[in-house]
């Protein structure tokens, strides 16, 4: 008898089921558990129960959310932040968990620095108490964010109870236009699906435009799965994946690597496998996108205008649009490209990788920014690479600040905030009210678009500034 065709989602799921219970939930084995400063609630729960950590060898702690991005050669000035960074080190050390702290040259945002170390591999389950864990799906891993109680559960058991998600395949077919990026693909998909459109689903990204993406681009795409409501998104591994992984510190070596590639090759969805839902997007239709509102679904092409709630029939939706426009301080019908910005931020686990910095630098080279801005590389490794390539000088000469690596202005808990009422062109992932600071207004976009906004002083189509440069 022929085996039932399976999707990559089924294959990853099946290979990790320890036990399946009636009612549909399964106990999944977890291959990598990533921890950051926010994990302290979970360690507290473990302590209260008097339990031990099941698999310190599969747990990795890294300081990113609270770390300062300036003055790293001095002790952390803010005692609350110093306590958070120290608490992670203490918890990791107490339980024999590998810890990448502030002084470690491998330090960076968990979803940037961990893949760099070769810890994120095809065929693995990866969890972290952070919703953007979906990023690691770029390698063909089943990677999803969990809450603190689930983190505690994984610490104590190295497994998690999950209900199998529905399977959604999003195919982007055909070549994308020059000047459009993985961020634009993702924002286009989120705008179409809605911020809750993929709830309960795991997404496989497929199609020629996805295959054409580099690992950095795939990570950006998978990273944003959660902004469409999906707990995880992934891309089947291929030659691009293997080339990127080979030789990384924690990746399999020598013959074991060859053996792994043989297994990884079998992960791809079978040709006739069925998905619960499918959608296809024409890659050639995707243009540079910016968000205008307070959820990532409020995304439109840069040549569009701010929506008018008066023209929306559904009263609840009209209310939501009106509320977003009021918060953002925009006028209905205004051209998006006329919106002035007060500052820019380039960084985060969405767009803080070397390619992202190169794309921003390509726009900025030889130009001066009209507004202040901060560039925070996604990892210390990215920072060193950027310096080797001379990107740091381009940023500085453009008048932007080039700082150390961390979550920084993506969430502002280290103190890197957008001041109240200010408007920021940002390469991050959430334009929620108050995300970058109380009353801060965030417009999400790609690194090239954020760089272009810095030069123009308002939102603008980066392709104009890239003419003759790429």
């Amino acid at each position: 008898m022929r085996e039932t065709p399976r999707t990559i989602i089924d294959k990853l799921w099946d290979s990790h089921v320890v036990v399946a219970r009636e009612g549909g939930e399964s106990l999944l084995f977890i291959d990598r558990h990533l921890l950051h400063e926010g994990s302290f609630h979970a360690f507290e729960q473990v302590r209260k129960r008097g339990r031990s950590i099941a698999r310190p060898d599969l747990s990795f702690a890294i300081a990113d959310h609270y770390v300062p991005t300036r003055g790293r050669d001095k002790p952390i000035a803010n005692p609350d932040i110093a306590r958070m960074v120290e608490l992670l080190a203490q918890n990791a050390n107490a339980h024999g968990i590998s810890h990448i702290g502030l002084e470690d040259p491998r330090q960076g945002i968990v979803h940037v620095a961990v893949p760099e170390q070769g810890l994120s591999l095809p065929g693995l389950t990866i969890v972290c108490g952070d919703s953007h864990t979906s990023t690691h799906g770029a390698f063909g891993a089943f990677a999803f964010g969990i809450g603190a109680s689930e983190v505690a559960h994984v610490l104590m058991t190295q497994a998690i109870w999950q209900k199998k998600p529905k399977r959604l395949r999003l195919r982007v077919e055909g070549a994308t236009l020059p000047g459009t990026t993985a961020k634009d693909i993702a924002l286009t998909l989120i705008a179409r699906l809605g911020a809750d459109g993929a709830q309960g689903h795991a997404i496989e990204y497929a199609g020629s435009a996805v295959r054409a993406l580099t690992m950095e681009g795939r990570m950006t795409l998978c990273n944003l799965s959660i902004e469409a409501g999906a707990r995880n998104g992934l891309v089947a591994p291929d030659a691009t994946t293997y080339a990127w992984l080979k030789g990384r510190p924690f990746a399999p070596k020598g013959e074991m690597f060859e053996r792994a590639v043989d297994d990884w090759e079998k992960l791809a969805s079978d040709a006739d496998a069925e998905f619960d839902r499918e959608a296809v997007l024409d890659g050639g239709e995707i243009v540079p996108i910016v968000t205008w509102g307070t959820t990532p679904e409020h995304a439109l092409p840069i040549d569009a205008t701010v929506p008018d709630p008066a023209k929306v029939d559904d009263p609840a939706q009209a209310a939501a649009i009106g509320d977003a426009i009021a918060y953002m301080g925009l006028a209905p019908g205004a051209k998006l490209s006329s919106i002035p910005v007060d500052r820019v931020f380039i960084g985060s686990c969405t767009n803080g990788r070397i390619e992202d910095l190169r794309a921003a630098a390509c726009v900025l080279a030889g130009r001066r920014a009209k507004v202040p801005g901060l560039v925070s590389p996604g990892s210390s490794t990215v920072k060193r690479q950027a310096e080797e390539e001379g990107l740091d000088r381009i940023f500085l000469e453009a008048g932007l600040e080039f700082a150390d690596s961390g979550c920084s202005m993506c969430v502002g808990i280290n103190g890197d905030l957008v001041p109240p009422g200010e408007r920021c062109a940002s390469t991050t992932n959430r334009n929620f009210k108050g995300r970058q600071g109380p009353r801060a207004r965030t417009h999400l976009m790609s690194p090239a678009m954020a760089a272009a906004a810095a030069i123009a002083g308002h939102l603008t189509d980066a392709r104009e500034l890239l003419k003759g440069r790429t």
Partner: protein
Amino acid sequence: MTPFTTLQAIACPLPLANIDTDQLVPARFLKQPRAEGYGGFLLHDLRFGADGKGASAMALDDKRYQGASILVARRNFGGGSSREGAVYALLDFGIRCVITPSFGDIFASNCVMNGLLPACVNEIDAEALLAHLQEFPGAAILVDLETQWIVCGNKTCTFSIDSFLKTKLLNGWDDVDVTKSFAKAMSSFLLKDAAARPWARPALPAARRQQARPGDSPSPDHPSAARET
């Protein structure tokens, strides 16, 4: 965890869509240990403004809704960040059930891990409940998890919840104990898995290998890898 069966309580309307977890509890409060209580942080900036000095115009702070244990809101409640602090804030404020057309997935499992019921109703029922609560401040709602019914005034409607989450709430299961009871299944999984996916264990980076002293185990596996979980 206390099981959740039925709840009859004052319900508070929150007629907003896309209440993400950043709004439920702004990131700057997440440093606080749980023991200090998260109730005061619930929807902090929406209620009091970022400086904490504003006067809240929300039903949550209206005397007529005081003591509410149920919250009714519009779609996509609890999307975004995985922070469990959002659930702590609701619970510590006194909320045991949120009713809305859709929830963020991670938020919904965080709710259940803490004994809070995320009840999904359709958009029409959500609007009807909101309208009723605004017309009759302080009105109570009855939520029955077993039958998945909501009773509000003379209106009744059903709600949906994932069967997995429902069972967990009804039983007040402590997952860790349940998981530990499958220790045997875990050992046989590990045995099979080690043969099927030998590459899945993290390889020791080269630098650390060189540091290993002669006589150390040649296995690249961490010594505790063989331990049963």
